[in-house]
């Protein structure tokens, strides 16, 4: 019997989404990642006495857009609150966050599970500023502080404890990830910490109504680690409970090198954050106009894209899935489709298989593709018109990537155009049939598989340039009729 047969797993996630903004949540300094330490610190970010916060209106817009995308209740008034604690990378001695009246209320998002689609309810999402960075491993006896990150804007998305396995938790995290990257409010860069998550995990006896004591695993910033961390935590808790021990309410850290979670601090060490409304920031009215503006700016979401790709554009479902849920892929697909004569299905197929293969080979992401949508569309046109075969198409794509030249130029210079001239093809095919009498006989004896042998021979002879449709027709004719 495995753990999940004896225990119900209960998981809730708090996801921190860094908003993709030029400036910080309450100051004008740049929020760009990776600048030299302490080069993006305003007087406010360093908590110089007398400075005051002014909220970044775009952060409000982004949060509202996110709220709309999860069908959330949006408040008429939202308030900021101070969360007080001392730490050297928190210059003011408090973090500006939200407590009562968060900017996004109850919402929901759909995830796919093995048992079918499932709705995960979202408790709330609120705006808050990030802390700076404490760097412990650069100077021997000292901790260095970098305040570039201090004050950058986050939204914290808090789910209901409705996920029942690590897989579901990952599916939920991916759903939120897709959402915020689609909305254009987060750059989605996991390495840079743009999207990180705390997981609350608890177990209760199978079928029990009472929630067990939970442990919180902090700061998970990869889909792989969150799955491993939760699975480790489930096993750890089950082991304790089955040994008659209690679960301690505590904060734990996941060590990816050892694949285990470790206690960071217990409940008794938890700070009393003394939340109270920030008197420097008056309650902010959320007007209908503000919401309507965001509604207008709301891009098409993956679910709607999937539906449109399959139903209107005739793209195969498995291919449409790969396109619709990847913001960069879908952008590239849609941009190139606008520019090409090729069928959407044809485009999608080539994009998902052949273009993806090239990207993998180059360890690149479509967002940083060296082939523009325009160049790609020209290639699709060449394919569509039958000027080149798919085989050659792959080769041309790689050439575009390398040289930046247009498909037309590459095809012309390297003489890659498909042989569609019937006379030329007939001569080649006749010759092949002539030189392979044994295989001809096998085919005529009913071995249909031999047909592909002849196709292969033609392609070999023509270095892949034979028009496959015509080749097929001529072969069929010659093989049957002698």
């Amino acid at each position, binding site marked *: 019997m495995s753990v999940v047969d004896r225990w119900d797993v209960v998981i809730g996630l708090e996801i921190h989404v860094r908003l993709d903004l030029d400036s910080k949540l309450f100051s004008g300094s740049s929020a760009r990642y990776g600048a030299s330490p302490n080069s993006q610190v305003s007087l406010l970010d360093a908590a110089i006495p007398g400075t005051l916060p002014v909220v970044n209106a775009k952060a409000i817009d982004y949060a509202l857009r996110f709220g709309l995308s999860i069908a959330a209740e949006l408040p008429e008034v939202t308030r900021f609150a101070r969360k007080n604690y001392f730490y050297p990378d928190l210059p003011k001695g408090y973090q500006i966050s939200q407590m009562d009246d968060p900017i996004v209320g109850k919402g929901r998002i759909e995830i796919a599970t093995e048992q079918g689609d499932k709705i995960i309810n979202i408790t709330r999402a609120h705006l808050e500023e990030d802390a700076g960075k404490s760097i412990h491993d650069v100077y021997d006896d000292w901790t260095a502080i970098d305040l570039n990150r201090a004050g950058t804007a986050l939204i914290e998305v808090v789910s209901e404890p409705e996920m029942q396995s690590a897989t579901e938790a990952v599916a939920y995290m991916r759903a939120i990830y897709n959402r915020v990257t689609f909305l254009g409010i987060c750059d989605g860069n996991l390495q840079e910490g743009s999207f990180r998550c705390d997981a609350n995990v608890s177990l209760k006896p199978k079928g029990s109504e009472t929630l067990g004591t939970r442990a919180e695993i902090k700061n998970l910033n990869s889909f792989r680690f969150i799955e491993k961390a939760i699975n480790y935590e489930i096993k750890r808790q089950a082991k304790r409970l089955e040994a008659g021990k209690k679960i301690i309410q505590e904060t734990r850290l996941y060590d990816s090198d050892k694949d285990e979670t470790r206690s960071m601090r217990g409940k008794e060490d938890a700070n009393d954050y003394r939340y109270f409304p920030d008197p*420097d920031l008056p309650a902010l009215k959320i007007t209908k106009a503000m919401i309507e503006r965001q509604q207008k700016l709301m891009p098409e979401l993956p679910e709607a894209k999937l539906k449109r790709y399959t139903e209107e554009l005739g793209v195969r479902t498995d291919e449409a899935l790969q396109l619709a849920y990847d913001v960069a892929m879908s952008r590239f697909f849609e941009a190139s489709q606008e520019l090409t004569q090729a069928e959407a299905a044809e485009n999608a197929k080539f994009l998902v298989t052949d273009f993806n293969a090239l990207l993998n080979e180059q360890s690149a992401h479509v967002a940083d593709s060296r082939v523009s949508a325009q160049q790609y569309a020209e290639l699709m046109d060449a394919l569509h018109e039958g000027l080149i075969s798919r085989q050659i198409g792959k080769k041309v794509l790689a050439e575009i990537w390398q040289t930046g030249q247009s498909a037309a130029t590459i095809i012309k210079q390297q003489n890659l155009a498909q042989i569609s001239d019937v006379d030329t093809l007939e001569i080649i095919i006749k010759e092949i049939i002539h030189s392979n009498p044994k295989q001809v006989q096998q085919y005529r004896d009913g071995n249909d598989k031999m047909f592909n042998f002849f196709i292969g021979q033609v392609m070999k002879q023509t270095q892949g340039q034979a028009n496959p449709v015509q080749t097929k027709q001529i072969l069929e004719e010659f093989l049957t009729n002698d």
Partner: protein
Amino acid sequence: MINLSIRALHELLSTKQLSAAELASVYLDRCRRYNSELNALLHILDDVNPAQLLQAKMLQKDSLLAGIPLIHKDLFCTQNVATTCGSNMLKNFKPPYDATVVSRLNQAGMLQLGKANMDEFAMGSSNEYSAFGSVANPWDSQRVPGGSSGGSAAAVAARLTPVATASDTGGSIRQPAAMCGITGIKPSYGRVSRYGMIAFASSLDQGGVMAVSADDCGIVLATMMGHDNKDSTSIEAEPWSWQPPATASMKGLKVGVIPAWLDELQDEAIRQSSQQALDLMVAQGAELVAVELPHAELAVAAYYILAPAEASSNLGRFDGIRYGHQSQTVERDINALYQHTRSEGFGAEVQRRIMLGTWALSSGYYDDYYCQAQRIRRLISEDFKQAFEQVDIMAVPVSPEVAFKKAEKSDGVSMYQADKFTIPASLAGLPCLSMPIASAHNLPVGLQLIGPYFNETAILKVATQFQMVSDYHLQMPEAYV
């Protein structure tokens, strides 16, 4: 010259009978001569800034304030000029920027002479809580000037400057103005930018001005006030301008009085002086109407939850890491560093209020104290709203006593009670001022005028009219004539 109004000084300056440099040096000399006995100033500039002097010259014709000397309370950040907030914590702090108030007055051509002493972080009612020594009341050096803007008040009273900036959280402009016999106004909350004014209690702090007369205050206020997009609590409104009234007639004016507050005054001389001032207003044509503020008796209790709560958070930034005092007694333990830095850097009263506020916000007490105090605050605002349906302004006492002797009040709570007449208007965010109305026990007595929200004009007008027919505001302590 030292008793001339801003308008009179402007006349001399703009007709070149006097240069801005000469005027500044008259006051700078007085600062240097008298400050050793008063300790009203923490910092006196060697000379006025030449760029400022140039600015004053250029604006001499257009700006009433061009060339008028000025002292800032030491919680207004002044670029590259020490700003201590009366605390050892910021003993060597030189801000890298000017507060909005400072830059606005600079732009109008005013000339900074120095920085005024104050209770540490504006917490106190006697100026005895300054880390840099108490301030003497110019009327009697054994007595306090009031607080927390005691340095500003003493400086104006001794004519070390014609004008001083100040700040008021629960009475810190009005009470020292009353005790030093000068005029001081705290505008409505949201009128004066708090950007660059080191915070005590953000929802109550409001910058204001002290001067000899209400007219002088109005002139300075017109430049100080106005929306500032660096302060989210600053209110957007039409620019405010000040025109003094043409006559002393208060005909048609309804003045609210609170009989219970007058009865509460234990000092008979203050009670009588207040009554006489009200009688004078009646003689000028005003009508007195009795009003009530039923919840005002809870004001002190609510204030001493809310203000310390906000202070406990506002003062969290003084941790010895980036600026200010850093304890040298500990190493390698961040919590010990915080503890020592803050114990050494903050005085006893500041520590008391931080602890009080921390406690009021802590889990389990927040609802009972902080939220309850917020409720009282709303009720008091409502009380005022109702009162202002019947009257145009209110006239009430400022302080239950005249300037008291130094070290007379040794416990915090009796000091807190000194603010009971000033705190209600602070909680409601209303404009209010104190003007000198009498002398009792050879010490000045003030009267507080409170106006409806955003109606600074109403109280300044009445104070100016009062000062047209009385001369208490022009009296100077003999030692500084």
